[in-house]
């Protein structure tokens, strides 16, 4: 292996950092966008809910005011009947009445009532006496409903002791009319009624809240009127009742319903709508925000990754350059001693016994002579050429290093399948190295043929650690030197290497 293959390890580390940075940045950006999005949505949610509750509450109050205004107007019209003296002094049950006078008095009272109610959609507007004689207009429906118990039943509806009046509907299960009664004197009650249908104008809610259900209920939460008209007479649904019971004016919202209640006289105006319905737009908006957020997250992450890549790119280049410079012997272009020992040591430490490796040491014979006779430049040239020879003979998978002034070392990593083949392969490489060294250091160039001694040791047979293998290899190399130089030998215990 050359310095190029060695630098891969550092670059891998830099790439790991680069990827970690890119992913980390992407994650941070996504987390930040997500956090902002969730916070924004939750905050918007809370604000929107408060606004909806507030608006519904306003609507409910408005409905109550509408009803209150409508009822007050009727009460006022009823009270105005007392502006005609005859209306509260005349008693149709008095046996001493002159019949002719009585007829004329009743006509006066009738005219007064007509003039008061002239522009109103009233079904009934008249006075009922204890003997069930009526003055003014009493509809057939009311007559049939109460029959001969009219005075008796209407009198029972007077609930307020101060103003001597009262409101009711639902007599005998008939919710078609809403009645207002006011005691005129002990033998007479004034009655005004209107069709419950009239309340559709009173409870006319805006189109944007058309899904809102509006019901008028009594103190026992029995429905007196509902906008769709079908619930009249039935109890308010338990779901709604449980949310407002005991409250005179309140608005409640949970995951199921938004309910608002307001008391009007002895009745309650209840407005409610399923939460999902009223907040449908909010959920739509939430989906939109999340969708936009996800797209923003992806874009931000991509942008972050791109910026990280841009940021780490020069670092990666610099690391690559520095790594090359730090691990390479400048003269020969192969690994320096430290790097070689580190790489070879690590490789051997992590190797299995079944793997085949070999260490080859080349030491230039009489190198000092080259320096002394031809000068250091020639020596340097020889050393540089030796680096080229090593690169030429060994493959990229092998580690090549200069470990001394004129000493080179190679860790051969790859080889044949069997031990015999591997040994043969090393022999071939040593022969090739010897020959190539010869070719590179000819007498023509250096004044004499410069030679080198080569030693080889096998892993794991000759040593397992770097030190063991190096020692064995070094010994083999010295045996080659002792045997006349310019050749190679394998470590052999029997030959005295041990």
């Amino acid at each position, binding site marked *: 292996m050359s310095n190029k293959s060695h630098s891969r390890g550092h670059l891998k580390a830099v790439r790991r950092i680069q990827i970690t940075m890119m992913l980390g940045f992407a994650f941070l950006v996504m987390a930040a966008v997500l956090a902002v999005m969730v916070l924004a949505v939750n905050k918007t949610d809370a604000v929107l809910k408060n606004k909806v509750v507030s608006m519904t509450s306003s609507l409910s109050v408005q409905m109550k005011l509408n009803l209150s205004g409508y009822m007050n107007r009727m009460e006022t019209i009823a009270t105005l009947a007392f502006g005609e003296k005859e209306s509260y002094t005349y008693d149709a049950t008095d046996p001493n009445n002159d019949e*002719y006078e009585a007829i*004329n008095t009743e006509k006066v009272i009738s005219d007064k009532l007509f003039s008061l109610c002239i522009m109103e959609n009233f079904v009934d507007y008249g006075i009922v006496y204890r003997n069930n004689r009526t003055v003014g207009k009493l509809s057939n429906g009311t007559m049939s409903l109460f029959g001969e118990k009219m005075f008796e039943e209407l009198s029972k509806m007077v609930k307020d002791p101060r103003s001597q009046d009262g409101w009711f509907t639902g007599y005998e299960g008939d919710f078609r009319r809403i009645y207002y009664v006011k005691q005129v004197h002990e033998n007479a009650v004034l009655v005004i009624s209107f069709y419950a249908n009239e309340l559709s104008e009173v409870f006319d809610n805006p189109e944007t809240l058309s899904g809102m259900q509006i019901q008028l209920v009594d103190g026992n939460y029995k429905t007196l009127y509902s906008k769709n008209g079908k619930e009249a007479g039935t109890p308010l649904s338990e779901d709604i009742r449980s949310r407002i019971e005991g409250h005179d004016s309140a608005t409640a919202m949970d995951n199921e319903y938004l309910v608002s209640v307001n008391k009007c006289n002895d009745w309650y105006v209840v407005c409610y709508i399923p939460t999902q319905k009223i907040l449908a737009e909010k959920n739509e908006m939430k989906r939109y925000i999340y969708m936009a957020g996800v797209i923003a997250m992806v874009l931000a992450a991509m942008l972050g990754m791109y910026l990280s890549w841009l940021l780490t790119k020069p670092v990666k280049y610099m690391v690559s350059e520095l790594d090359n410079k730090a691990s390479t012997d400048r003269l020969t272009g192969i690994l320096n001693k430290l790097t070689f020992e580190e790489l070879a040591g690590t490789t051997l430490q992590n190797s299995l016994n079944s793997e085949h490796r070999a260490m080859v040491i080349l030491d230039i014979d009489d190198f000092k002579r080259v320096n002394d006779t031809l000068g250091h430049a020639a020596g340097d040239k020889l050393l540089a050429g030796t680096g080229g020879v090593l690169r030429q003979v060994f493959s990229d998978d092998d580690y090549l290093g200069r470990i001394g002034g004129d000493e080179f070392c190679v860790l051969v990593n790859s080889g044949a399948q069997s031990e015999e083949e591997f040994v043969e392969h090393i022999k071939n490489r040593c022969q090739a190295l010897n020959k190539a060294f010869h070719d590179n250091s000819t007498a023509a160039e250096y004044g004499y043929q410069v030679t080198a001694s080569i030693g080889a040791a096998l892993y794991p047979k000759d040593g397992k650690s770097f030190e063991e293998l190096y020692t064995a290899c070094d010994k083999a190399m010295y045996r080659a030197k002792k045997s006349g130089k310019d050749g190679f030998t394998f470590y052999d215990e029997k030959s005295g290497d041990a």
Partner: protein
Amino acid sequence: MKKRFLATISAFCFALTLTGCGNDKNVVVDQTVQTEITLSWWGNDTRSEYTLAAIEEFEKLHPDIKVKCSYSEWSGYEARNQVRMISGTETDVMQINVGWLDQYSPDGEGYYDISALADTVDLSNFSEDVLEYGMRGGKLNAVPIAMNAETMYINKSIYDKYGIDIPKTWDDLFEAAKVMSPDGIYPMAGADKSMWLTLVAYGEQLSGKHFYNENNEITFNAKDFQNMIEFYGKMVNEKVIPLIEDYQKFNMENGKYAGSIGWVSDALNFYKNVIADGQEVVAADYPVIEGLPSGTGWYAKPATLYAISKNTEHPQEAAILLDYMLNSREMAKYQGIEKGIPISTSARNYLDEIGKLSGLQYEASLVMENNEYISSMNSLIENSALFNDFIDASNLYLFNKATSKEAAEQLYEKYCESYDMAK
């Protein structure tokens, strides 16, 4: 590098667009604007309830139109209509009495000319003779709904109980009173206007002349009014009828009234519960003086008409509503024959198709349609002031405040001051 910069900026812009940053447009939410038109009618509970239900259905069929209703009993409505017509606040579509055409639109300018809306209101359902009732000054001011007449309803079950035949003459009623009055039962009864028209019928039978001549002048003199007042007094005193002021509709249900004078359109209003109770009620012949043919002195008129305000801001919507009220199957289904048998061919055919042309009201209509002697009513005769003055004069006589002659003369003088009298 420039490319990279542009790409980065583009990405940011795209993200901002998605998140809606920089969007500060004003928010405008359009509400559906309904055209609001108004409708008015008079009538009893039944009519008001079914009309409200029919209008609810109309609004479903025409969600862009909102109909605001104004309604009351007859007497309240008449006064209210007057206030509105004079103040120019009348409703867009209104039920009117035939008499009001002369009162408010003698030249045809008082109401909208419906013939101008014939593209929307299907007038082919009405014959020209019928539409003539609503024509004034060559303009179609109103379209009649049905024909109507005061009718003599007899609770046959009560009459049978006393072994009395269904009365045909006034004398028959006096005879019936002799038998029924000991039990506190009246052979007939009527509200103010019905009794007024009953007494006019008697007056015409006795005098042989119509109450109004062709020039809209009252032909009756003091003597004729004296006869009417005395006849009314006799009927009250001999318990044929209760005092007009004592009339209570529920007495028809409890059997205190064995007969009743009322409009064809009142049949179900009066007797729905009685019939449901298993009693038999019939539409009898119009009572007359012995020897005269039934129907003499009695009147028929368009039950009511629908008109459109001359001041309406929404004539097209008003026409849609008018067509619905007159010709639609929906309205025909709700209305049935409550106002009498509808004149509109399509409404009438639909009622025939669903078997609603039957019952007491239908019988009363047939009595009216089949009678040859019944006259077309001059609408002026329904003026409430006219009959209220008559009732006041009658009470002077009934309660011994004046003789019949004095009361009649007082009444005649009052009429002379207020109305055109024939010489």
